[in-house]
Protein backbone atom coordinates (compact mmCIF):
# COMPACT_ATOMS: atom_id res chain seq x y z
CA UNK A 1 0.00 0.00 0.00
CA UNK A 2 2.82 2.31 1.01
CA UNK A 3 4.68 1.39 -2.20
CA UNK A 4 1.53 2.03 -4.22
CA UNK A 5 1.18 5.50 -2.67
CA UNK A 6 4.83 6.22 -3.37
CA UNK A 7 4.39 5.11 -6.96
CA UNK A 8 1.41 7.43 -7.33
CA UNK A 9 3.40 10.29 -5.81
CA UNK A 10 6.31 9.59 -8.16
CA UNK A 11 3.97 9.52 -11.15
CA UNK A 12 2.47 12.86 -10.12
CA UNK A 13 5.91 14.44 -9.68
CA UNK A 14 7.11 13.00 -13.00
CA UNK A 15 3.99 14.36 -14.69
CA UNK A 16 4.57 17.80 -13.26
CA UNK A 17 8.22 17.71 -14.32
CA UNK A 18 7.19 17.02 -17.92
CA UNK A 19 5.83 20.57 -18.07
CA UNK A 20 9.11 22.40 -18.32
CA UNK A 21 7.79 25.96 -17.89
CA UNK A 22 4.88 27.55 -16.17
CA UNK A 23 2.13 28.53 -18.58
CA UNK A 24 1.91 32.20 -19.44
CA UNK A 25 -0.99 34.53 -18.70
CA UNK A 26 -4.29 33.84 -20.42
CA UNK A 27 -6.14 36.31 -22.59
CA UNK A 28 -8.40 38.42 -20.36
CA UNK A 29 -6.31 37.84 -17.26
CA UNK A 30 -4.01 40.47 -15.69
CA UNK A 31 -0.70 40.80 -17.52
CA UNK A 32 2.06 40.04 -15.00
CA UNK A 33 3.56 43.26 -13.65
CA UNK A 34 7.24 43.92 -14.23
CA UNK A 35 9.73 46.70 -14.05
CA UNK A 36 12.90 46.94 -16.14
CA UNK A 37 15.61 49.45 -16.90
CA UNK A 38 15.47 50.86 -20.39
CA UNK A 39 18.65 50.96 -22.45
CA UNK A 40 18.64 54.76 -22.38
CA UNK A 41 18.92 54.70 -18.60
CA UNK A 42 15.26 55.15 -17.74
CA UNK A 43 12.86 52.86 -15.96
CA UNK A 44 9.80 51.10 -17.33
CA UNK A 45 6.89 49.79 -15.29
CA UNK A 46 4.17 47.93 -17.17
CA UNK A 47 1.52 48.81 -14.59
CA UNK A 48 2.32 52.54 -14.83
CA UNK A 49 2.54 52.48 -18.64
CA UNK A 50 -0.80 50.67 -18.95
CA UNK A 51 -2.53 53.32 -16.85
CA UNK A 52 -1.26 56.18 -19.00
CA UNK A 53 -1.75 54.63 -22.47
CA UNK A 54 -4.64 53.25 -24.49
CA UNK A 55 -2.60 50.08 -24.95
CA UNK A 56 0.92 48.80 -24.33
CA UNK A 57 2.50 46.49 -26.89
CA UNK A 58 5.23 44.36 -25.31
CA UNK A 59 7.45 42.77 -27.95
CA UNK A 60 10.05 40.10 -27.23
CA UNK A 61 12.72 40.82 -29.83
CA UNK A 62 16.21 39.78 -30.85
CA UNK A 63 19.16 41.20 -32.74
CA UNK A 64 20.24 38.05 -34.61
CA UNK A 65 16.96 36.23 -35.24
CA UNK A 66 15.94 36.44 -38.93
CA UNK A 67 12.26 36.26 -38.02
CA UNK A 68 12.56 39.16 -35.57
CA UNK A 69 14.74 41.10 -37.98
CA UNK A 70 12.19 40.59 -40.76
CA UNK A 71 9.84 42.72 -38.65
CA UNK A 72 12.22 45.58 -37.75
CA UNK A 73 10.66 47.99 -40.23
CA UNK A 74 7.12 46.93 -39.35
CA UNK A 75 7.82 47.35 -35.61
CA UNK A 76 9.36 50.78 -36.22
CA UNK A 77 6.50 51.98 -38.43
CA UNK A 78 3.70 50.60 -36.27
CA UNK A 79 5.24 52.04 -33.10
CA UNK A 80 5.37 55.49 -34.71
CA UNK A 81 1.88 55.28 -36.22
CA UNK A 82 0.19 54.01 -33.07
CA UNK A 83 2.07 56.37 -30.74
CA UNK A 84 -0.13 59.12 -32.20
CA UNK A 85 -3.16 57.12 -31.09
CA UNK A 86 -1.97 56.66 -27.52
CA UNK A 87 -0.35 53.24 -27.85
CA UNK A 88 3.11 52.54 -26.44
CA UNK A 89 5.37 49.93 -28.06
CA UNK A 90 8.28 48.53 -26.02
CA UNK A 91 10.87 45.91 -26.91
CA UNK A 92 12.35 43.36 -24.53
CA UNK A 93 15.49 41.42 -25.37
CA UNK A 94 15.70 38.34 -23.13
CA UNK A 95 18.48 36.58 -25.02
CA UNK A 96 21.48 36.00 -22.78
CA UNK A 97 23.61 35.88 -25.95
CA UNK A 98 22.78 39.46 -26.97
CA UNK A 99 24.29 42.08 -24.63
CA UNK A 100 22.91 45.59 -24.08
CA UNK A 101 25.50 47.26 -26.33
CA UNK A 102 24.53 44.97 -29.21
CA UNK A 103 20.82 45.69 -28.67
CA UNK A 104 21.54 49.43 -28.60
CA UNK A 105 23.59 49.29 -31.81
CA UNK A 106 20.97 47.12 -33.54
CA UNK A 107 18.22 49.62 -32.60
CA UNK A 108 20.27 52.49 -33.95
CA UNK A 109 21.00 50.63 -37.18
CA UNK A 110 17.32 49.86 -37.78
CA UNK A 111 15.83 53.11 -36.46
CA UNK A 112 13.95 51.43 -33.59
CA UNK A 113 13.00 54.45 -31.50
CA UNK A 114 10.67 52.73 -29.02
CA UNK A 115 11.93 51.93 -25.49
CA UNK A 116 14.12 48.83 -25.42
CA UNK A 117 15.26 46.87 -22.40
CA UNK A 118 17.32 43.88 -21.49
CA UNK A 119 15.65 41.21 -19.37
CA UNK A 120 18.36 39.97 -16.99
CA UNK A 121 18.07 36.21 -16.31
CA UNK A 122 15.04 36.20 -18.67
CA UNK A 123 12.75 36.75 -15.68
CA UNK A 124 10.10 38.62 -17.67
CA UNK A 125 10.20 36.06 -20.48
CA UNK A 126 9.61 33.37 -17.85
CA UNK A 127 6.81 35.39 -16.27
CA UNK A 128 5.02 35.47 -19.63
CA UNK A 129 6.23 32.05 -20.82
CA UNK A 130 7.45 33.89 -23.90
CA UNK A 131 9.16 31.32 -26.09
CA UNK A 132 10.48 32.98 -29.17
CA UNK A 133 11.13 36.18 -31.05
CA UNK A 134 9.25 38.08 -32.18
CA UNK A 135 6.44 37.37 -29.72
CA UNK A 136 3.89 40.06 -28.93
CA UNK A 137 1.66 40.80 -25.92
CA UNK A 138 -0.90 43.63 -25.88
CA UNK A 139 -2.07 45.02 -22.55
CA UNK A 140 -5.14 47.24 -22.19
CA UNK A 141 -5.43 50.24 -19.79
CA UNK A 142 -6.91 48.02 -17.07
CA UNK A 143 -3.75 45.88 -17.20
CA UNK A 144 -5.40 42.89 -18.85
CA UNK A 145 -3.81 40.89 -21.63
CA UNK A 146 -5.93 41.29 -24.77
CA UNK A 147 -3.68 39.87 -27.50
CA UNK A 148 -0.80 37.40 -27.72
CA UNK A 149 1.05 36.16 -30.75
CA UNK A 150 2.47 37.44 -33.99
CA UNK A 151 2.61 40.77 -35.80
CA UNK A 152 1.18 39.20 -38.95
CA UNK A 153 1.36 35.95 -40.87
CA UNK A 154 3.87 36.94 -43.58
CA UNK A 155 7.43 37.44 -42.36
CA UNK A 156 8.80 37.08 -45.87
CA UNK A 157 6.97 39.96 -47.52
CA UNK A 158 5.35 42.88 -45.71
CA UNK A 159 3.58 43.93 -48.91
CA UNK A 160 1.72 40.61 -49.09
CA UNK A 161 0.36 40.40 -45.56
CA UNK A 162 -3.16 38.99 -45.54
CA UNK A 163 -3.66 38.73 -41.79
CA UNK A 164 -2.36 41.85 -39.96
CA UNK A 165 -3.20 40.38 -36.57
CA UNK A 166 -1.49 42.93 -34.29
CA UNK A 167 -2.88 45.86 -36.26
CA UNK A 168 -6.38 44.36 -36.15
CA UNK A 169 -6.12 43.78 -32.41
CA UNK A 170 -5.02 47.37 -31.76
CA UNK A 171 -7.67 48.85 -34.05
CA UNK A 172 -10.38 46.81 -32.37
CA UNK A 173 -9.12 47.74 -28.91
CA UNK A 174 -8.96 51.45 -29.80
CA UNK A 175 -12.48 51.24 -31.23
CA UNK A 176 -13.73 49.85 -27.93
CA UNK A 177 -14.35 46.41 -29.40
CA UNK A 178 -13.28 42.99 -28.19
CA UNK A 179 -10.24 41.62 -30.00
CA UNK A 180 -11.66 39.02 -32.38
CA UNK A 181 -8.49 36.98 -32.87
CA UNK A 182 -6.69 37.24 -29.56
CA UNK A 183 -4.21 34.34 -29.92
CA UNK A 184 -2.04 33.71 -32.96
CA UNK A 185 1.10 31.69 -33.66
CA UNK A 186 4.10 31.90 -35.96
CA UNK A 187 7.57 30.43 -36.22
CA UNK A 188 10.33 32.21 -34.38
CA UNK A 189 13.72 31.84 -32.75
CA UNK A 190 13.79 30.34 -29.26
CA UNK A 191 14.67 32.82 -26.55
CA UNK A 192 18.19 31.98 -25.39
CA UNK A 193 17.58 31.57 -21.69
CA UNK A 194 20.12 31.44 -18.90
Amino acid at each position, binding site marked *: MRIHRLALLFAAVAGAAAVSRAAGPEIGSPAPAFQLQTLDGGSFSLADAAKTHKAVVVMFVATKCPYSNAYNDRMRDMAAAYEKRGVLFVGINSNK*TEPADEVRAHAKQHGLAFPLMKDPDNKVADLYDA*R*HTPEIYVVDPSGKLVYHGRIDENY*EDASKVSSPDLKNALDQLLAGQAVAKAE*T*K*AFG*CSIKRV
Partner: protein
Amino acid sequence: MFDQESLSRRALGALLLFLASGLSGAQGPRIAGELDAAGLRERLAREKGRVVLLNFWATWCDPCREEFPDLVRLQNAYASKGLRVLGVTTDFASQMPAVDKFLAAQKPSFPNYRKKSGGDDQAFIEAVDRSWGGELPFSVLYGRDGRKIKTLSGKHTYADYEKEVRALIR
Protein backbone atom coordinates in the same frame (compact mmCIF):
# COMPACT_ATOMS: atom_id res chain seq x y z
CA MET B 1 31.97 40.77 -79.36
CA PHE B 2 33.92 37.64 -78.42
CA ASP B 3 36.33 35.70 -80.59
CA GLN B 4 35.82 31.99 -81.02
CA GLU B 5 38.61 31.03 -78.62
CA SER B 6 37.15 33.26 -75.90
CA LEU B 7 33.70 31.76 -76.46
CA SER B 8 35.10 28.24 -76.26
CA ARG B 9 36.89 29.07 -73.02
CA ARG B 10 33.65 30.49 -71.58
CA ALA B 11 31.67 27.44 -72.68
CA LEU B 12 34.24 25.12 -71.14
CA GLY B 13 34.22 27.17 -67.94
CA ALA B 14 30.43 27.02 -67.74
CA LEU B 15 30.50 23.24 -68.31
CA LEU B 16 33.08 22.73 -65.57
CA LEU B 17 31.04 24.91 -63.18
CA PHE B 18 27.89 22.90 -63.98
CA LEU B 19 29.68 19.60 -63.40
CA ALA B 20 31.25 20.86 -60.17
CA SER B 21 27.89 22.04 -58.79
CA GLY B 22 26.35 18.68 -59.68
CA LEU B 23 29.18 16.83 -57.98
CA SER B 24 29.06 18.96 -54.82
CA GLY B 25 25.29 18.40 -54.60
CA ALA B 26 25.74 14.66 -54.98
CA GLN B 27 28.16 14.56 -52.05
CA GLY B 28 25.59 15.33 -49.40
CA PRO B 29 22.04 14.33 -48.55
CA ARG B 30 19.39 16.66 -49.91
CA ILE B 31 15.92 17.65 -48.82
CA ALA B 32 13.64 14.67 -49.40
CA GLY B 33 10.62 16.80 -50.28
CA GLU B 34 8.18 19.40 -49.03
CA LEU B 35 5.47 18.71 -46.50
CA ASP B 36 2.32 20.49 -45.41
CA ALA B 37 0.39 19.35 -42.33
CA ALA B 38 -1.43 16.56 -44.20
CA GLY B 39 1.79 15.41 -45.87
CA LEU B 40 3.53 15.28 -42.52
CA ARG B 41 0.74 13.15 -41.06
CA GLU B 42 1.06 10.71 -43.98
CA ARG B 43 4.85 10.64 -43.67
CA LEU B 44 4.61 9.85 -39.95
CA ALA B 45 2.10 7.08 -40.64
CA ARG B 46 4.73 5.32 -42.77
CA GLU B 47 6.95 4.95 -39.71
CA LYS B 48 4.51 2.89 -37.64
CA GLY B 49 6.48 0.21 -35.81
CA ARG B 50 9.37 2.58 -35.20
CA VAL B 51 10.01 5.13 -32.50
CA VAL B 52 10.05 8.51 -34.23
CA LEU B 53 11.82 11.67 -33.17
CA LEU B 54 10.44 14.50 -35.31
CA ASN B 55 12.67 17.56 -35.19
CA PHE B 56 11.90 21.02 -36.59
CA TRP B 57 14.93 23.15 -37.41
CA ALA B 58 16.23 25.95 -39.60
CA THR B 59 19.68 26.91 -40.82
CA TRP B 60 19.44 30.38 -39.26
CA CYS B 61 18.52 28.89 -35.86
CA ASP B 62 21.71 28.61 -33.78
CA PRO B 63 20.39 26.13 -31.19
CA CYS B 64 18.98 24.00 -34.03
CA ARG B 65 22.39 23.83 -35.70
CA GLU B 66 24.05 23.13 -32.36
CA GLU B 67 21.89 20.12 -31.51
CA PHE B 68 21.72 18.68 -35.05
CA PRO B 69 24.98 16.66 -34.78
CA ASP B 70 23.54 14.95 -31.68
CA LEU B 71 20.46 13.93 -33.66
CA VAL B 72 22.72 12.48 -36.36
CA ARG B 73 24.64 10.56 -33.69
CA LEU B 74 21.40 9.40 -32.07
CA GLN B 75 20.00 8.07 -35.36
CA ASN B 76 23.24 6.21 -36.07
CA ALA B 77 23.32 4.69 -32.59
CA TYR B 78 19.67 3.60 -32.43
CA ALA B 79 18.69 2.93 -36.05
CA SER B 80 19.07 -0.83 -35.63
CA LYS B 81 16.87 -0.71 -32.52
CA GLY B 82 14.02 0.93 -34.38
CA LEU B 83 14.56 4.69 -34.12
CA ARG B 84 13.76 6.99 -37.00
CA VAL B 85 14.68 10.64 -36.72
CA LEU B 86 12.74 12.83 -39.16
CA GLY B 87 13.89 16.38 -39.76
CA VAL B 88 11.74 19.22 -41.05
CA THR B 89 13.30 22.57 -41.83
CA THR B 90 11.22 25.73 -41.82
CA ASP B 91 13.77 27.56 -43.96
CA PHE B 92 12.33 29.72 -46.73
CA ALA B 93 12.61 28.50 -50.33
CA SER B 94 15.24 31.20 -50.93
CA GLN B 95 17.40 29.65 -48.21
CA MET B 96 17.69 26.26 -49.90
CA PRO B 97 21.36 26.72 -50.85
CA ALA B 98 22.13 27.15 -47.13
CA VAL B 99 20.02 24.07 -46.35
CA ASP B 100 21.89 21.94 -48.92
CA LYS B 101 25.23 23.17 -47.60
CA PHE B 102 24.22 22.41 -44.02
CA LEU B 103 23.01 18.89 -44.84
CA ALA B 104 26.13 18.20 -46.91
CA ALA B 105 28.25 19.10 -43.88
CA GLN B 106 26.16 17.23 -41.32
CA LYS B 107 25.56 14.10 -43.42
CA PRO B 108 22.44 12.93 -41.56
CA SER B 109 21.43 9.34 -42.19
CA PHE B 110 17.80 10.33 -41.63
CA PRO B 111 15.51 12.10 -44.10
CA ASN B 112 14.93 15.83 -43.93
CA TYR B 113 12.00 17.69 -45.44
CA ARG B 114 11.12 21.34 -45.90
CA LYS B 115 7.88 22.78 -44.58
CA LYS B 116 5.93 23.71 -47.66
CA SER B 117 5.71 27.45 -48.31
CA GLY B 118 2.37 29.17 -48.29
CA GLY B 119 -0.64 28.76 -46.08
CA ASP B 120 -0.87 30.00 -42.54
CA ASP B 121 1.95 28.72 -40.33
CA GLN B 122 -0.42 28.76 -37.38
CA ALA B 123 -2.46 25.92 -38.88
CA PHE B 124 0.72 23.88 -39.45
CA ILE B 125 2.06 24.57 -35.94
CA GLU B 126 -1.20 23.57 -34.29
CA ALA B 127 -1.51 20.45 -36.43
CA VAL B 128 1.86 19.31 -35.08
CA ASP B 129 1.01 20.10 -31.47
CA ARG B 130 -1.33 22.58 -29.83
CA SER B 131 1.24 23.35 -27.11
CA TRP B 132 3.81 24.45 -29.70
CA GLY B 133 4.26 28.22 -29.84
CA GLY B 134 6.32 28.12 -33.05
CA GLU B 135 9.73 28.26 -31.35
CA LEU B 136 12.64 26.39 -32.89
CA PRO B 137 14.04 23.88 -32.40
CA PHE B 138 11.04 21.80 -31.45
CA SER B 139 10.82 18.01 -31.29
CA VAL B 140 8.03 15.48 -30.96
CA LEU B 141 8.48 11.86 -29.88
CA TYR B 142 6.13 9.16 -31.16
CA GLY B 143 5.91 5.60 -29.88
CA ARG B 144 6.01 2.50 -32.09
CA ASP B 145 2.20 2.57 -32.29
CA GLY B 146 2.32 6.09 -33.75
CA ARG B 147 1.03 7.73 -30.59
CA LYS B 148 2.50 11.09 -29.66
CA ILE B 149 4.43 10.61 -26.41
CA LYS B 150 6.15 13.88 -25.66
CA THR B 151 7.19 17.26 -27.02
CA LEU B 152 10.55 18.87 -26.36
CA SER B 153 10.78 22.63 -26.79
CA GLY B 154 14.14 24.28 -27.51
CA LYS B 155 17.62 22.79 -27.66
CA HIS B 156 18.38 19.56 -25.82
CA THR B 157 21.49 17.51 -25.21
CA TYR B 158 22.31 14.10 -26.61
CA ALA B 159 21.73 12.67 -23.12
CA ASP B 160 18.26 14.27 -22.95
CA TYR B 161 17.19 12.79 -26.28
CA GLU B 162 18.82 9.43 -25.59
CA LYS B 163 16.99 9.12 -22.29
CA GLU B 164 13.63 9.71 -23.98
CA VAL B 165 14.41 7.39 -26.88
CA ARG B 166 15.70 4.58 -24.66
CA ALA B 167 12.49 4.66 -22.64
CA LEU B 168 10.49 4.00 -25.81
CA ILE B 169 12.80 1.74 -27.74
CA ARG B 170 12.61 -1.25 -25.37
